[in-house]
């Protein structure tokens, strides 16, 4: 695993998230479920806890956008870059953006699984950089996995616990 230079990490364990808009590729319930589960994989192995809010500014603002969406890192159309997220800091820090020129999927293989893409991006939102371990969730390239049996790879567990420690409830 790798962390961002400069020790970017949240100074609190209770974080908020807000879904600003939705992709037309999936139902609202499917997006909500994918995002919630993607955050939970990190909460399961750390002291971090996530609460959804529906208005105002959350620590992790989640949006779907295409092309130039105003953050200086434009998306590139279908395939290529699927999403990006910013490490923890004030303002845009922690926010996750998904390229809505992609086709996102809930369970099917016809598209990029939103849960997997989101879980990777939230790793960045929490302070993890890309891992060189091809089996890690934080490996930069998209790898399809069986989401029904998904468990966070050990490299990612080691990374998040390096930053925040283990889950005190386990």
């Amino acid at each position, binding site marked *: 695993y790798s962390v*961002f230079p400069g020790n970017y990490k949240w100074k609190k364990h209770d974080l908020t998230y807000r879904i600003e808009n939705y992709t037309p590729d999936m139902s609202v319930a499917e997006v909500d479920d994918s995002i919630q589960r993607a955050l939970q994989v990190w909460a399961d192995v750390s002291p971090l806890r996530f609460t959804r809010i529906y208005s105002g500014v959350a620590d992790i603002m989640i949006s779907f956008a295409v092309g130039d969406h105003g953050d200086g890192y434009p*998306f590139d159309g279908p395939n290529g870059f699927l999403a*990006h*997220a910013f490490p923890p800091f004030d303002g845009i820090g922690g926010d996750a953006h998904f390229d809505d020129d992609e086709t996102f999927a809930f369970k099917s293989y016809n598209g*990029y699984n939103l849960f997997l*893409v989101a879980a990777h991006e939230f790793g960045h939102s929490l302070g993890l950089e890309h891992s*060189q371990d091809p089996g890690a969730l934080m490996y*930069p390239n*998209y790898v399809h996995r069986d989401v029904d049996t998904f468990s966070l790879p050990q490299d990612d567990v080691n990374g998040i616990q390096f930053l925040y420690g283990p889950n005190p409830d386990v």
Partner: protein
Amino acid sequence: LPSIDKEEITMAEDYLNKLYALPKKASNEKLQRSSSMSMRLKEMQEFFGLKITGTLNEETLNVMKKPRCGVPDVAA
């Protein structure tokens, strides 16, 4: 590089520029661009465990063409 076309070279430069901080400006722009490209290619090849050549080859291009996260692998 007879099997690599101009479009793929442009794609590779864009990839390295976005993910490996290829410098855009230099005093001798052409020379600097070439050496920076080689340096960034080596960084990219090392990151992905590829054969480190500093030159664009099919193996490297194949990795560049895979869908991925847009966050840089090596910070500027």
